[in-house]
């Protein structure tokens, strides 16, 4: 089980300091460098340097096209001031928050937990089949998932959902236009529930069976056992999952862009789509970079909150 909780057991198992006179660190550093070096170089080249360059760009009026592209200038915090007073950007942040809250934090987490608990029950038959069915959305490439849902939510009478509602006499509906946010939330829940299930299944396996058994003998109901025993014991993995899913959901782009392109009327213009539009479609790379920096800071704050919460001892 993966955990980010600093437990007493782990502290006790920490390596003892080397006896005086031994030069162990000097002998191991080339090996450590060999193992960590390539990864560190890749991180520096492909993450740290671009992030620093992005931070630099966010303080300039750099454009990709037009005469302004020839002579970018330092503009201080103008891009940040502009964005933090822009109704469009703030709306895109709000929509991102809504999307993350309902699709990742509530939808994927709850359904993933339910799936993990159900599949851990001994009386469930065909676990492999159910597991495969839940895993399938995670396995298929993003573009295939998008095409599938474009077909399901298609606005004509041939769309799968419209065929189903048509059985009850309803007229065809343009789901992606009538309820765009709900649609993309459902699609993202469908796509992400497998990852939640895998993480929670692994966590549930580490919960001692005798504890559960003891509680059951004491007369605790299934809900009480989950609330007071299981959940506190898997708190670390739950918060780790929340951290990972929040980061990945804030960055969701392809799935939503393919289905709605941020529309209708900006109703699903998540921050990632806003950044893409600004930086690449309208060539305002300075503003796009500043928006990315703001999003990065927000995700870091959320990450710190999750880490802090996950450290509470059970």
């Amino acid at each position, binding site marked *: 089980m993966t955990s980010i909780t600093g437990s007493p057991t782990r502290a006790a198992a920490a390596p003892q300091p080397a006896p005086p006179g031994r030069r162990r660190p000097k002998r191991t550093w080339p090996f450590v460098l060999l193992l960590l070096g390539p990864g560190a170089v890749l991180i520096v080249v492909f993450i740290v340097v671009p992030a620093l360059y992005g931070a630099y760009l966010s303080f300039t009026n750099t454009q990709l096209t037009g005469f302004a592209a020839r002579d970018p200038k330092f503009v201080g915090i103008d891009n940040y001031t502009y964005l933090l007073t822009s109704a469009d950007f703030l709306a895109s942040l709000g929509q991102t928050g809504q999307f993350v809250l309902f699709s990742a934090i509530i939808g994927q987490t709850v359904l993933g937990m339910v799936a993990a608990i159900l599949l851990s029950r001994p009386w469930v038959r065909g676990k492999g089949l159910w597991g495969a069915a839940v895993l399938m959305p995670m396995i298929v490439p993003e573009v295939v998932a998008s095409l599938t849902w474009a077909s399901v939510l298609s606005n004509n009478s041939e769309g799968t959902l419209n065929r189903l509602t048509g059985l009850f006499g309803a007229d065809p509906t343009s789901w992606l*236009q009538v309820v765009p946010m709900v649609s993309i939330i459902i699609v993202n829940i469908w796509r992400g529930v497998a990852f939640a299930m895998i993480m929670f299944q692994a966590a549930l396996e580490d919960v001692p069976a005798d504890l559960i058994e003891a509680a059951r003998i004491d007369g605790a109901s299934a809900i009480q056992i989950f609330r007071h025993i299981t959940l506190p014991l898997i708190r670390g993995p739950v918060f780790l999952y929340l951290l990972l899913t929040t980061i990945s959901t804030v960055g969701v782009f392809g799935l939503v862009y393919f289905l709605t392109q941020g529309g209708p009327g900006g109703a699903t213009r998540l921050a990632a789509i806003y950044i893409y539009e600004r930086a690449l479609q309208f060539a305002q790379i300075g503003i796009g970079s500043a928006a990315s920096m703001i999003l990065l800071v927000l995700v870091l704050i959320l990450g710190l909150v999750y880490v802090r919460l996950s450290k509470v001892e059970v």
Partner: protein
Amino acid sequence: MKRTRVIAALVATAVTVGGLTACSADSSGGDGKDGPVTITLMETKQIGIDSAKKQIPGFEAEMKKQGRDITVKLIGDVLTDPQFVTKITQQYIAGEAPDVADLGDSMVPGFAGAGYLAPIDDYLADWDGWDHYFPQFKEAMVRQDGKIYALVHDTGVQNFFYRKDLLTEYGVDTTQPATWDDMIARLEEIKAKNGDLPPIVIPAGTAWGGGTWNEGFQPILAGADQDYYSLETGKWDLESKGWLPTFNLYSDLVTKDLLPVQDLENPNPWEPTKYDKFPAGELQVAAQGTWGWKFDWGPDGATPIPDLETKLDTWQYPAMEAGGETYGWSGLGSSYGISENSENKEAAMLLAQYLSSGQPVADQLVASGAAPVRDDIADIKPFADEPKLVQAGKDLQTSLYVPTGDGSEQVAQAVANATEMILQGKANGQQAYDAFVEDATDLLGPSLVK
């Protein structure tokens, strides 16, 4: 030791000779006279790809006759305009762009301004084909720094295509509407005869992207006002007189349920409108360029309409006010731009000139359904056998066009946002105009606003 030195000397000699040879090839100027030259051509529309495949062997043979050894490598990549802009912008920045790219009208100002395209004035001055270009296009190709950066090879006239067969069946007058009031009255009549469904599509809102400005708003705006951009100062006049009436017109069309709002909110709004409902006769009028005859609805087009020349006809844009002239709107169409980083600019320019002349351009115009920008094409077959396209070529002489420059993407964005507010019922014409001014001022910055 001696052997090592001999090998080192040989390697050094080989590198030096190779380097000098390479320099020698480069210093030939890349025109194919002093050695073989390979240039790349990028096309992003299937029709353009097919056409280039057909024309390239002819170009290479023609160059051989002139003693030039030029090979053309075609990069055919079917992309939408926004995808193409995103891709080629990255290539220009990285210095990896193709030597020649077939660019849309709205892309050239931004790329030229950023220095990605090479100025071609000197090449044009030495080219006899340049004398055949219509003067208004020569003038419109000049960018705000006084230079020409892309060679236009085709264009079109934007009009309103209407379903003549259906309007005749409904008993609706099919003569040219003189004003927008006449047009709206006509549209209401069509709507009443067609189950109260919206009868006209004009690009609007954010989903249509740059088309909302280029193919929807700007042609209407130009009928009321041609002073909204000044090539001399390079500034946009956001208080120019045509903006508000144009927003008011959009508002009228929406409040009277004449525009298919829900279809315009579709992520690909041209599909339910131009590609589904217009061919099916559920929409009867569409703002559309000359390419409608071939690219959209022709026998090999996106959604063919059988017997389209008997079923369709065109109206010009009505005047905004009584007493005004009706008009067609023309853009600069498509043009060949040469990368500033190209090592073979001369060969690239020869290709652009070849594809923009005589039989090659006549073939391309028929394939894409476009009109020529020069006076020596009308009699060349198969173009000469296409009466609608020949007529479009004639209409160009009287059509309106307002060349714009830096900032057109930002204005396009602000117009898309403001018309989106109208579509969603969040603003009337005045409110949309106010929002547009605020948005455009913000996006353009002080240096581009009058």
